[in-house]
C-alpha cells in the first residue's frame, strides 16, 4: 500500500487575472462534475422515492380505490378511518410485541457471539464467516425453510421429530395461539438471519478497545470475566450498542417478509406493513386508506426513533 496524502491538490497562483479566471473555471468544472456524479442517484431518489411519497400523501386525502388518479376528496377521512380501524391498531400492537421480542434478543445474541468469536484463538475467520453467513440468505428462503422443514406442524417436521423423541406431541407451531408458538418461529427466523450482521459490528468495536485498559483493570484488581465485561467492555461499546439498537428497531419496523411468508395475513400476526399491503396492493386496492396508514406509520417511526435517539444519546459526542 502506498502512502496517500489527504490534502487537496493546490491551485498555485501564478499571477494576476489569468490565475483567477482559471480558478473560476476550475470551480465551475468541479461544480459540473459534482452534479454529474450525483445526478443519477438524485434522479433515482426523486423518481422512485420522493415522488411516490408525495403522491402517496396526495392519495391519502382522496377516496382512491382501484385508481391512482382519484377525484373524490375526503379530507382527513382516510386518517380517521385508519385510526379507528381495529385491525390497523391491532397491527401496531403486533408490531410492538415483535419489536419488544426481537430487539433485546438480537442485541444479546449478537453481543454474545461477538465476545465468543473475539475470544476464540483458532479458526477465528471461520467462526466469523459461519455466523455471518445467514445474513446473505433471503428472508423468503429462510421463511420457507422455517415453515416447511423446521417448524411444520406435522409429526415429521424437524422440531416435532426432536420433541417426539422425548415423548412430546406434535405442536402446530404457526397455528397455535395458546401458547402463541408462532412468535418462536418468527423470532428465531429473524435472529438467525440478522444476528451475524450485528455480531460483525460488535466485533469491530471489541477489537477497537485498547488492550491497555484491560491490563490496567487487571493491575487494579478487577476480576476477569463479568466484572471486566460489565465495567470496561460494555461502557466502551456504548456507541456501537446504541447504533445496533436503533438499526434493530428500524429493521423491526420494516418487518414484512417473514410474517407474510410464514403466516400470510392472519389476524393475530399481521404487522402494519402486511396489513397495509393487503389493504392497498392486495385485492382491495384501496390506495387512499393505504397511503393514510403508511403516513401514520411513518410518523410513528419518526417520533419513536427520535425519542430513542434522545434517550440513548445517539450522536452525542463521545468522551
Amino acid at each position: 500500500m502506498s502512502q496517500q496524502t489527504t490534502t487537496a491538490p493546490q491551485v498555485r497562483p501564478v499571477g494576476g487575472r489569468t490565475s483567477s479566471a482559471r480558478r473560476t473555471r476550475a470551480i465551475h468544472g468541479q461544480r459540473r462534475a459534482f452534479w454529474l456524479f450525483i445526478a443519477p442517484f438524485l434522479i433515482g431518489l426523486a423518481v422512485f422515492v420522493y415522488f411516490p411519497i408525495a403522491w402517496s400523501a396526495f392519495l391519502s386525502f382522496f377516496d382512491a380505490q382501484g385508481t391512482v388518479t382519484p377525484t373524490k376528496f375526503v379530507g382527513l377521512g382516510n386518517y380517521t378511518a385508519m385510526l379507528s380501524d381495529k385491525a390497523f391498531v391491532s397491527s401496531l400492537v403486533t408490531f410492538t410485541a415483535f419489536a419488544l421480542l426481537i430487539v433485546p434478543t438480537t442485541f444479546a445474541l449478537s453481543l454474545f457471539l461477538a465476545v465468543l468469536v473475539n475470544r476464540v484463538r483458532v479458526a477465528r475467520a471461520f467462526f466469523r464467516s459461519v455466523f455471518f453467513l445467514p445474513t446473505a440468505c433471503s428472508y423468503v428462503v429462510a421463511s420457507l425453510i422455517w415453515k416447511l422443514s423446521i417448524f411444520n406442524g406435522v409429526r415429521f417436521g424437524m422440531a416435532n421429530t426432536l420433541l417426539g423423541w422425548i415423548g412430546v406431541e406434535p405442536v402446530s407451531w404457526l397455528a397455535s395461539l395458546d401458547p402463541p408458538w408462532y412468535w418462536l418461529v418468527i423470532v428465531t427466523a429473524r435472529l438467525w438471519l440478522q444476528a451475524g450482521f450485528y455480531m460483525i459490528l460488535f466485533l469491530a468495536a471489541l477489537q477497537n478497545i485498547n488492550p491497555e485498559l484491560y491490563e490496567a483493570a487487571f493491575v487494579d484488581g478487577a476480576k476477569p470475566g463479568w466484572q471486566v465485561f460489565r465495567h470496561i467492555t460494555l461502557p466502551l461499546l456504548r456507541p456501537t450498542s446504541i447504533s445496533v439498537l436503533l438499526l434493530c428497531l428500524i429493521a423491526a419496523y420494516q418487518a414484512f417478509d417473514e410474517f407474510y411468508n410464514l403466516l400470510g395475513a392472519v389476524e393475530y400476526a399481521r404487522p402494519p406493513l402486511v396489513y397495509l399491503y393487503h389493504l392497498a396492493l392486495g385485492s382491495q386496492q384501496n390506495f387512499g386508506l393505504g397511503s393514510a396508514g403508511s403516513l401514520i406509520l411513518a410518523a410513528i417511526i419518526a417520533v419513536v426513533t427520535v425519542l430513542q435517539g434522545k434517550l440513548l444519546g445517539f450522536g452525542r459526542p463521545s468522551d
Partner: protein
Amino acid sequence: MTPPANVSRRAVLGGALGLAAAGVLGACGSNKGTGAAATGGGGSKVSLSQWYHQYGEKGTQEAAKKYAAEYTDATVQIQWIPGDYPAKLSSGLSSGNGPDAFEGHLERSLVSSGQVVPLDDLIADVKDDYAEGDLAANSIDGKLYSIPMINDPQMLYYRKSLFEAKGIKPPQTLDDLIAAAKELTDKSVKGLFAGNDANNTGGGLTTAAIYSTGGRFLTADHKIGFDPAKVAEVLLKLRKFAADKSLLLGAPTDWWDPSAINQNLCAMQWIGMWAVPGMSTALGADEIGAFPFPAAAGGKPAVVSGGWSAFVSAKSKNIDAAKAFTKWLWVDKTDLQEDWSLSYGFHIPPRKSLAAKASKLQSGPAAESVKLNTDYGVQGDPNWTPAMSTALTDAVTRVIGKGGDPETELAGAVKKINTELSKIFG
C-alpha cells in the same frame, strides 16, 4: 488502470446518464414484455396475454398453452401466475400492465373502477345453456362481466376405511362432525384438515358456517344476509375442534391440495372436487366419500360453490381481439372446455349440455360431489368485497383462535360491513 486518453470524462458520464435515463424510460414504457413488440407490425397478428392462476394439477399449464396455440386469429401468450394471484392480478389491472384476457372472480370493484368490460354479447346465442345462478354470480347490475369457465364445489371428503374401522357414519350434525373428528384423531392421524389456519381466512369453514344457518353473505337487496346470533352458535362449536386437538394444523401443503389426506395425515379434509382424481389415484376411488358441512339448527347443509370465470380487461389495447379469443375458447370450443373441466382436476362444466354428458362425473366420489352441489351448493356474491371478507374472517379468527366473545366480535364485523355497504350502495 487508467481510462483511455481519448475518451473525455464528460463523455463517459454523459453516456452513463443517458443509459440510466433510457433505462428509466424503458422501464416505464415497456408494457407486455415480449408480446408488445409484435403488436405494432402492420398486418401482423394481434398479440394478447392471458393470465391463469397456478392450477395444482399436472398438465394444466400445457393444456392452457395448447389451447392458445390452437387459436389462429391472434398470438396468445399464457402467463401462469404462482403465489398470490388476486394481488398480482389487481396490481396488474390497475397499473395497466395486466393481461388482455384473464380468469378471476367477479367483484364489484372490478366494475366500479372500470377494469373489466361487459361480455353479454359473447354468450347471447347460448345463454340458456348456463344455470341462472351461474349467470347471477357473474353479473353486476344486470350486466354479465365474466363467463363461467369451471364450477368447483367444496365440501368435506373423508377416508371410508378409517370411518368404518371406528364405526363412524358421515356426520349429520355439527356435533357429530366434532365427535367424529375427535374419535378419528390418534397419534399420527388428525380428524380434520380444514386449512393451516383452520380455514378461517381460506374461506371454507367460515363461509360454510354462514350458509349452514340458512344465511348468505348478502341479501339480493345488498343487506347483511345472515343472523349473527345463529352464526355465533356455529362458531362456538367450531372452537371445539381446537380444544379437542382434532385439527391438523401446519401441514406442508394447504387445504386446496390433497397431499394431507393422501399422506394419511388426516381422516377428513375440506377441499374441492378438483382434488377427486388426485385422491382417487393415491387412495382409490372407493376409499373416498363426501358429505356437506352439516346444517345448523333450522338451517341447511352447506356446500361452497366456487369456480373460475373468464374476463376481458378494459385496459387492453385490443379489447375486441381479447373478446373474440375469450368467446372462441370459453363459449365456442366446447371440446376444449370439456378437456379443461375433466382431463386434469375435476370441475363441473358450467354449460348444462356439457355437464349432462360428463361421464367422468357420473360415478364414485365425483358423482357424489355433483349431487351434493346440486342439492346444497351456494355461489359467491360479487357484491361481497374483500374488505367485508377481511372484517368477517378477522372476527372469526378472534372468536375461534383467541376465545373472543362471538356476539361482540360479529357485531363489530357487521358494523364494518354495513359501513362498506353504505359506501357502495348509499
